[in-house]
């Protein structure tokens, strides 16, 4: 089973996000980017399927952030082929529709049975890359997937609903699946394996010209949320905070 995985770089949410005063949008000049977490789950699920059924895993990523490192890490985890897509303006942040259009072009000579990507990315605003790519390729799409099983040329996915409920859905391939979580946590690879991949593997490059997307939803302004309420912050040393919180809970009659 040949599988394509898409990895998108998104803002690292551990860092502070700032608004650029001149554009009114997210200031991207010092933004630290990292692979979208659900895309890492998609890669894990792809490698699990490869281990089970054979086939090749191809990973694609736009040339943003530490893309080489992410692609070599993917090789260390079990990817067979890694493709970096180059082009202009990627660092400005592209909409999902635009990314899907670029990926469709890059996939024109890649054989696949399944495309896996994160159900969504933390900075999605105009739709989801996987769902758009499916529509663009004329393939079925299922998102919120937490398990993928293949047998007799058919794929059965587990789709997650709230409250721990799941549904099994059969998909006739090829298809695009939005992964919500891999069936087990993404594997960790040691740096030495990544270094090894850097020596043995080659990142292919695919250049795309500017793509035009009609009727795109565009953000006109961004803001940091200003909540009407904020927690009363307890300051001091850790023992002081512990004492204060314990007293607070006792005062409020929480303890039985």
């Amino acid at each position, binding site marked *: 089973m040949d599988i394509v995985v898409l990895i998108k770089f*998104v803002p690292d*949410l551990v860092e502070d*996000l700032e608004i650029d005063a001149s554009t009114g949008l*997210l200031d991207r000049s010092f933004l630290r980017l990292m692979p979208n*977490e659900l895309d890492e789950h998609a890669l894990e699920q792809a490698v699990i399927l490869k281990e089970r059924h054979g086939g090749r895993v191809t990973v694609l990523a736009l040339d943003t952030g530490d893309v080489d490192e992410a692609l070599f890490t993917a090789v260390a985890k079990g990817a067979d082929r890694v493709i970096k897509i180059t082009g202009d303006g990627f660092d400005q942040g592209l909409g999902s*529709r635009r990314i899907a259009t670029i990926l469709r072009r890059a996939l024109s000579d890649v054989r696949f049975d399944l495309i896996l990507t994160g159900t*969504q990315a*933390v900075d*999605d*605003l105009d*739709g*989801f890359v996987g*769902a*758009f790519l*499916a*529509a663009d390729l004329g393939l*079925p*799409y299922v*998102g*919120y997937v937490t398990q993928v099983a293949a047998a007799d040329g058919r794929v*059965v996915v587990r*789709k997650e*609903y*709230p*409250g*721990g*409920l*799941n*549904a*099994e*859905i059969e998909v006739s391939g090829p298809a695009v699946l*939005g992964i*919500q*979580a*891999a069936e087990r946590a993404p594997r960790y690879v040691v740096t030495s394996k990544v270094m090894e991949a850097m020596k043995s593997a080659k990142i292919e490059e695919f250049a795309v010209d500017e793509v035009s997307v*009609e*009727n*795109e*939803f*565009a953000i006109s*302004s*961004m*803001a*940091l*949320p200003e*909540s009407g*309420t904020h*927690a*009363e*912050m*307890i300051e001091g040393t*850790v023992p002081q*905070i*512990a004492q204060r*919180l*314990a*007293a*607070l*809970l006792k005062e409020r009659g929480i*303890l039985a």
Partner: protein
Amino acid sequence: MCGEVCVVVEVLRGEVKDITYIMLAAGRQLAAGLKTKLTALLIGRDVQKLVAQLGAADRIVCVEHADLEEFNPDAYLQVLIAVFEQHAPRLVMFGHTATGTDLACGVAHRLRWPVATACWTFSLGNGTVQCSSLTCGGKLIANGPLPEPSCVVTVMPGGYKAKDGQVHKTPAVETVSAPGLDQVRTRFKQYLEPPAGDVDITKQRILVSVGRGIQNKDNLALAEKLAAALGGVVSGSRPVIDQAWLPTTRLVGKSGKQVKPKLYVAIGISGAPEHLEGVAEAELMLAINTDPKAPIFDVAQYGATCNALELMPLLTENLKR
């Protein structure tokens, strides 16, 4: 339906989900502002019995077919495209949910409409509809105009109250026949029930909930001891469940449980919108997170930015005194 506001009703196992009422509440306001009608699009099998719950809409468009009994992404998509090819609403609203997000982009792509996702409020300004979306884990709000003449949106809970969209009245129902569904490439097989046997976190008085900040599985013991001292149990946010440090039955949030404890202690949880959906009804919340800008502090009553791993044993000790 042309030029109208259209809410795609979300039904799971024969039950209208709350997000539908939230969308109807939003749609009611927008339809009034745009001087147009509010339509609810109801898809399923034998769903006409649900129309009395959708009285917030001016009318219902109902598509029924045996193959639409349970959610089936490809079949539902084909129905939606067939309906909207005939009538193009000004706005099509889907829930920002496991079903809505499967459909929104497919509809938008096929009809060449734009899509705006994770919308939580809408307003009318500069002659058009503006939306605000929560993005980047709730750390950023993005605003933009919804392009005309038609646009697809996915709606998150938070901006509107479900009860404002719950009107018991039976609007006019128009039945539309489903398109041929013989080329459908996805098929619903069965539901897998949540595992039973574990404690029910929705019934707990006190929850100590752990997130990414707990760092590793061994540190869970600290949270277990704190929970024991408080007379509660441990629950968690998505990253902890995905690491299999806690069973899925302990997941709080959009894809897990909606909890309503007297006390919710959030340890190392940033407070992404998906998590906050699950804790809206907690009576008292205490949050420990090293990031002073974490959204969790906007909903907690008390907070501290100290190291939670150091705090938990000390707090446990103090509570026992």
